């Protein structure tokens, strides 16, 4: 088996009395996309920046591409092979897009052509425009292009779509998939549940400096046994008797809201009752628990 791209063990980081990271262990395999999902202040940025060699952990150790980013030599080697988009990256406003890419390319031993990158990110027509004059979405594509300028093996994207409008966000998602298809490992942070489920098969939920759940999006939800929610719109329906695995059944104005382990017994039960009572079912909806539900369940708080 290939070496993991990232291996973090028991990372802790304190800022004064505040614990930003409280024992984070995580392994990221080569070639996969990991989404770190968590609210503001969860410690996502701190975690990434320790791996990038920007901050030092108080405790624990990390290996990134087989190197230790906490040592000067390891840090340099790591930084040669990673691509980074920081959470809030400003660029030199008075340099053009092409000048910016060429400047950063010159800082690496291995480099990608600026023209190719601009074409890939759909900003070739902006090459001679100063960065300060770009729209938010275009700017973010420059930031992404910058993260690829050294043909990295591993790409860190800290909140790559925060603050973007839905169109720009979709564009960035396409770019991220494009990066993944080239076999580059990606670690991204987000507080959008949708972003994590759409882009990543490997999700880690972070809260208060800890990883509270990890796995595939479906795996996390089913491991928590959050079950399903069935909504029935059928005025006049009463539910008598019982079905297997029902946790709660609440009557509303024109129907029922039922929480249960599995959908099938509940659906059968509802059908049987409706037929018996001669009541029409106008609508029946089965909702699986989402990552968002998982997060609320795990932390007692809303995401975002």
């Amino acid at each position, binding site marked *: 088996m290939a070496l993991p791209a990232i291996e973090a063990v028991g990372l802790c980081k304190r800022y004064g009395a505040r614990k930003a990271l409280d024992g984070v262990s995580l392994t990221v395999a080569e070639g996969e996309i990991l989404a770190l999902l968590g609210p503001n202040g969860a410690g996502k940025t701190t975690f990434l920046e320790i791996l*990038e*060699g*920007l901050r030092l952990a108080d405790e624990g150790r990390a290996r990134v591409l087989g190197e230790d980013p906490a040592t000067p030599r390891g840090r*340099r*080697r790591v*930084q*040669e092979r*990673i691509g*980074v988009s*920081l959470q*809030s*990256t*400003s*660029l*030199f406003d*008075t*340099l053009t897009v092409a*000048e910016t890419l*060429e*400047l*950063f390319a*010159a*800082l*690496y*031993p291995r480099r990608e052509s600026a023209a190719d990158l601009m074409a890939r990110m759909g900003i070739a027509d902006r090459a001679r425009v100063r960065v300060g004059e770009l729209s938010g979405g275009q700017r973010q594509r420059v930031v992404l292009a*910058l993260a690829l300028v*050294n043909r990295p093996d591993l790409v860190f994207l800290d909140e790559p779509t925060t603050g973007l409008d839905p169109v720009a966000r979709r564009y960035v998602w396409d770019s991220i998939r494009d990066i993944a298809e080239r076999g580059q490992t990606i670690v991204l942070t987000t507080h959008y549940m949708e972003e994590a489920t759409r882009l990543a098969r490997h999700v880690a939920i972070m809260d208060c400096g800890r990883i509270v759940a990890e796995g595939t999006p479906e795996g996390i939800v089913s491991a928590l046994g959050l079950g399903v929610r069935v909504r029935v719109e059928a005025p006049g329906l009463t539910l008598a008797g019982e079905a297997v695995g029902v946790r709660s059944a609440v009557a509303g104005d024109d129907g029922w809201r039922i929480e249960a382990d599995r959908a099938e017994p509940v659906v059968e039960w509802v059908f049987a009752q409706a037929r018996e009572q001669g009541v029409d079912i106008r609508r029946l909806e089965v909702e699986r628990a989402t990552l968002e539900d998982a997060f609320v369940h795990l932390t007692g708080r809303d995401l975002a």
Partner: protein
Amino acid sequence: MKALMALVGANLKLVVRNRQTMVWSLAFPLMLMLLLGLFFGHASGSSTRVAVAGSGPYRAAVAQGLARVPGFSVSNTNPVKAVQEVRSGKADMAVVVGDGRPARLTVWQSGADVAVNGQDALVVRQVAAAVQAALTRTPPLFQITVRTVAGGGGHTYIDFLVPGILAMELMSNGLFSGLALVTYREQGILRRLRVTPMPTLLFLAARILVQLVVMVVQLALTLGVAVALFGYRPAGGAGAAAVAILLGALAFIATGFFVAGVARTADAASAIANLINLPMMFLGGVFFPTSGFGGAFGFLVRLVPLGYLASALRLTLSNGEGFGAVGTDLAVLALTLLLTTGLAARFFRWESRPA
């Protein structure tokens, strides 16, 4: 090497495209010198305009005599207008010749030009004496030759002013060179550079190199203006001057980087730089000599590095001295450089402190 070249290139573009720094580092010192030179220095490249008026047999002879003095341009008018021209600045001096014997010769000068007035008045006296000698056919009792002594100190105000302005430009430019660093730090650009494998020092080295280039352009422009408009003639000492300039420039850039390290925002950095800049400018003897002061003020004056740079430049550029004359100045500048570099390194930060 490729990385350094790219950084230097990018930083040059950043500096040139920043209109504010361009104005402050290039236009402002030139303007200042023009103003000071015109007010106090009497542009020796431009001529002294003399309005001659009056009546009587000697008027024409005096006008002719004055017209032959190098640097004097003479116009003829009537006494009332001549004085008005001085008042309005159209003429630098009015000479009104009366009739009778002895003929009364009145020289009118504007009050603004104390340093030069004495010289001009002396010239008029000499011309009058020459006219008298010629007309009365008395052989001259004295023949006066005026010579300048190399190394004898600044001869005109411009000789004093130009090296001072050069030193001041180096200081201001250096002190404010950290502002961009603070801005880049506040915007997180320094952190972005920090996650590249580029060594820390390379970016600073590029920044310093670019700053030096700007300074050289600035000095060349200033010297050009001084030579073209004020007739300033560098007297030599180029080698020692270059060393003084390099030491001074680096010391002031280091001070600017130190300021960038202790200031939280660009505005704060600007305020601190000004707080250093203004007193140094006055204590450093840029506009008037401060070397003669004693007591507490004299002590303060001797603490100001700018003074040593100005002194070194004056001794070399204006007086033509070499390394021998500026040893102390260079030593003080080198010491300042060492100290400020230490401070800059100690306080340098890649990220802004969280509020």
